[in-house]
């Protein structure tokens, strides 16, 4: 899709926490309100709303219907939902804006992982015949991928620890991060294995959180940003691709779908200031860096990334929000955000944004 006059103009998110006491809807009410207020628009100006969430996180069927109450669905609004990360909700909102009949859209993502056991829940997204009955949890899968990466010679355990140290260090300047601090790489390597060759810190924390993003088109995007003393984060392209489901039928040490999605989103490998990647496990950052061909000069996960806070169903949209904020405040000229779904980077979304 060619249209390039759609931009992120405002974002808001909750801090990632181990357990939020408010309900998911109660997390969304102030988050959506904050994004709308930052955009300086009236709620009724939003022409389309799309939400991303997963009912299995809290075990309440139709939880996503309640979530809509946080968007203010009366009088009736035009809305959609994806049982997926909010990044895919943004994708749908972006697509909708291409119709050129509305100027503003809202996308949000939310999830409380605290009430459930991720090991139990996420095994259920797998092939129900060959994988789910094994109780194959995401950390075990990530362990297999990590070991494949080591065996391929593409990375070392030290590389994993360096990703973690950088994530925690970057997260120090992120008020929404759950885990942050200065960690010595050798001290990290001295920790025992959790799921060999992964250590506990190579895995993301369990987090509750929500995020909302306002998109606007053309002149409306310019006026909204100008009123806030910022510039729009123009979406130059957004694309997502998926690979076969069976882990043994793909190369786990590379991410062909990420490379393809990036290319289709218009990333030609040129200069890039910021890349916010959904590297849920530390080895995945190395796979993604390679898939995107990122040089050392790119600031990767300045927010800390998912290793510093992993509100599943919001975490991908948070990457887009973090990248967009850095474009909007002028500190980045060109930024890329990545979101992922499915086991071991099976499906990948890339969003490329630029300042003017």
């Amino acid at each position, binding site marked *: 899709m060619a249209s390039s006059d759609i931009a992120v103009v405002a974002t808001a998110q909750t801090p990632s926490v181990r357990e939020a006491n408010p*309900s998911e*809807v109660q997390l969304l009410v102030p988050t959506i309100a904050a994004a709308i207020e930052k955009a300086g628009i009236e709620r009724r100006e939003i022409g389309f709303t799309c939400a991303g969430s997963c009912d299995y996180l809290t075990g*309440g069927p139709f939880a996503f219907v*309640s979530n809509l*109450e946080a968007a203010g669905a009366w009088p009736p609004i035009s809305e959609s939902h994806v049982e997926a990360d909010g990044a895919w909700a943004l994708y749908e909102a972006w697509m909708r804006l291409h119709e050129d009949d509305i100027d503003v859209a809202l996308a949000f993502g939310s999830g409380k992982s605290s009430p459930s056991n991720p090991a139990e829940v996420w095994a259920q997204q797998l092939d129900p015949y060959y994988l*789910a009955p094994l109780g194959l949890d995401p950390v075990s899968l990530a362990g297999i991928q990590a070991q494949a990466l080591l065996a391929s010679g593409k990375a070392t355990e030290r590389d994993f620890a360096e990703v973690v140290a950088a994530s925690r260090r970057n997260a120090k300047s992120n008020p929404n991060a759950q885990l942050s601090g200065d960690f010595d790489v050798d001290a990290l390597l001295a920790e025992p294995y959790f799921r060999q060759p992964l250590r506990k810190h190579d895995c993301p924390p369990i987090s509750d959180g929500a995020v909302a993003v306002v998109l606007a088109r053309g002149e409306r995007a310019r006026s909204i940003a100008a009123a806030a003393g910022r510039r729009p984060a123009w979406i130059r392209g957004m694309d997502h691709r998926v690979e076969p489901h069976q882990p043994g039928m793909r190369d786990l040490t590379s991410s062909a779908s990420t490379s393809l999605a990036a290319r289709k989103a218009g990333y030609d490998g040129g200069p890039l200031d910021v890349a916010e990647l959904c590297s849920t496990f530390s080895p995945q950052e190395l796979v993604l860096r390679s898939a995107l061909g990122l040089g050392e000069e790119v600031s990767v996960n300045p927010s800390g990334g998912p290793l510093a806070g992993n509100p599943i169903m919001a975490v991908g949209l948070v990457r887009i929000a973090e990248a967009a904020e850095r474009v909007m405040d002028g500190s980045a000229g060109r930024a890329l955000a990545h979101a992922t779904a499915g086991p071991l980077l099976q499906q990948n979304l890339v969003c490329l944004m630029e300042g003017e």
Partner: protein
Amino acid sequence: MSAPPKEHLVMEHLVTLTYREKLTENLNRFADNLLEARIVGHKCPSCGRVYVPPKGYCPLCVVATGNNDEVELPDRGTLTGFTIITPVAYYGQQQTEPFVWASVLLDGADTPLTGQNITGVPHSELRMGLRVKARWKPREQRSVEGMTNRGWGGFGDVVESFEATGEPDAGEEVYKEHIF
């Protein structure tokens, strides 16, 4: 290779997922009050609508509601809608006899309590507008274990049923906006 025997063609797989979620502050307080046979909802500071159970926000105004917005309601109200469910056997089914599933709008509330049992009236005489009052369980039998943040099981196990009071039926204007 011949086709596998029929008995191999079905895979039995029981998936179990366990959830442990802390009740929100508003529902925890609601539960505290129910155990004392008190029904306390939230009144929206913007539009004045009263929600029971309280969600902690008004979905129409999209504003948060909190402890300062609490309002106590009487334990009597009007039947706004109902159905008689004939139980069908399925995994987890506990009902065996036809039972009532009714919505009760407490006096002063803007949202009805759903899934309530109505007693004191034969099923064939159930009607919208019927005036009912809570028949509370003895204090030591009251339980709020079934309450969830989703708002289901919102009345816990504190009330045996709502029973007909014998008052004249409420007029249509009371229930017509709150059937469901």
